[in-house]
């Protein structure tokens, strides 16, 4: 069994305490709300594109430390990236969180590797990936349309992750 203390390391605790890009984004072009009905975690992700690049991204919501830190580090990681780059990173993160990514092969994971251990805690995988599913849902949204009512982004397939 995994040692979950390894997951609750400094960087995750720090992002939980002082989340980056936390708050609302005025005039967001893309927005989505992710909800984990099993634990009540709810997170919203909003972003704006400047031509092809993610110019601004923000998140807010009620969630556990794993989810909040994942969201915080996600926003930091995708800022300035193109939609395509962000989607590749999303796929790689989901693969890592579910234990399907070969970390020795070339990848874009970088600092996000602190979440690698979550794959050994099946009940917590969803916490780590909720922000990424929500980001993916936001990419496919328009202006003020929310996915909240219908599709639960938790279960929306992303690529082959």
């Amino acid at each position: 069994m995994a040692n979950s203390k390894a997951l609750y390391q400094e960087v995750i605790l720090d992002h939980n305490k002082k989340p980056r890009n936390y708050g609302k984004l005025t005039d967001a072009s893309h927005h989505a709300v992710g909800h984990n009905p099993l634990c009540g975690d709810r997170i919203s992700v909003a972003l704006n594109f400047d031509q092809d690049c993610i110019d601004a991204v923000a998140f807010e919501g009620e969630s556990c430390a794993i989810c909040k830190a994942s969201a915080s580090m996600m926003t930091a990681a995708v800022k300035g990236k193109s939609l395509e780059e962000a989607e590749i990173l999303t796929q790689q993160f989901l693969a890592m969180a579910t234990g399907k990514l070969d970390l020795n092969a070339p990848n874009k994971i970088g600092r996000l590797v602190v979440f690698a251990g979550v794959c050994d805690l099946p009940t917590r995988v969803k916490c780590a990936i909720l922000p990424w599913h929500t980001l993916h849902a936001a990419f496919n949204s328009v202006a003020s349309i929310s996915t909240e009512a219908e599709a639960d982004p938790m279960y929306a397939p992303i690529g082959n992750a």
Partner: protein
Amino acid sequence: MSLSQTQFTLASSPVFDVERIRSDFPILQLKVEDKPLVYLDSAASSQMPQLVIDSLIRYQTMQHANIHRAVHYLSETATTEYEAARGKLKRFINAPEEREVIFTSGTTDAINLVMHGYGRQFIKAGDEIILTTLEHHSNIVPWQMLAEETGAKIRVAPVNDAGEVLIDDYEKLFNARTRFVGVIHVSNALGTINPVKQMIAFAHEHGVPVLVDGAQAVPHLAVDVQDLDCDFYVFSGHKLCGPTGIGVLYGKAALLEKMQPFKGGGDMILSVTFEKTTYNTIPQKFEAGTPAIAAAIGLGVAIDYLLAIGMDEIAVHEHDLLVYATEQITRMPGVHIIGTAANKAAVISFTVDGVHPHDIGTLLNEEGVAVRTGHHCAQPVMDRFHVPATSRASFAFYNTRNEVDALIAGIRTLQKVFA
């Protein structure tokens, strides 16, 4: 039930030997994360003593066949054992008659049976069903489904800040259209013991039948359905040291006889032609198909086991744990107990400042401590107390003060991690 001081002092008497009791439960010897398992999640599902495990093996090894069907030795043995379990359950809740005890797959199944069998027949458009804020989703959703289907209305009795049903408000909900009351005996989320006897008496003054969800009550206090005078009483086996997949609906015979069957099939009929089917009498009318025979027998053995210890002794020991844990948690800075009813079962829902319940659950697991985190299938309770979720430690008679200490130490550790 209220516990007097005299009863309370019994807890420390040598009569209740918790270490001997623990040795009856093989799973309690487990280690988790290299630490002794501290199982504080019995409100979700309790553990099974060896006696019950043995009874399941014995049944499958030497007694199994289908019941109420063949004349051969095994079928007769299985039928006798299954019906003997019904007799034990009748005595356990002091039901007047065995035929008033219906085996279901659990509490949820039992409530759905009443919704379909009673609700769909007797509750019409404009009629009102009274529930309380404390209900488990299993005593909300079936009634909502009925309300949607029939145009009936659900009205909810609120709770105060301690998590106690406001009885004046409950009584004010009654009017000429009130047709049914559903109330949880002991709140799974907060531990509140509701004054169901009083609530039932009031409903009966208005001619309204009452279903009591006893899933959290029967493991912790002696329940007498005749004393309560409830019309329906439902509970699950797996919270009573029995197997999953078995539960009980107690109903007054006069009501059960008026009700439509819930499920159609074998065993619930007297005769079948393509023109007309005549239903069996109760309890078989409500037990279509082959039931969970082994589970029912196992539950009977679990009840023998609990009664040998004594429900009053169990209540006293658990109350001691509740008082001990409450005192300690109340003193901890940054930790808040949700649900402080004067009359409580051994359930403590709590929050820790700055730490989400899921992180609490994961980090306590690191110390071998198993608690439930989440909304406890009681989202209206969470909404009432403005929390998305809580952590819940629930105690059974096999828990000890040392395990309470392990919980407290675990909370201190996680507070340090998140400091």
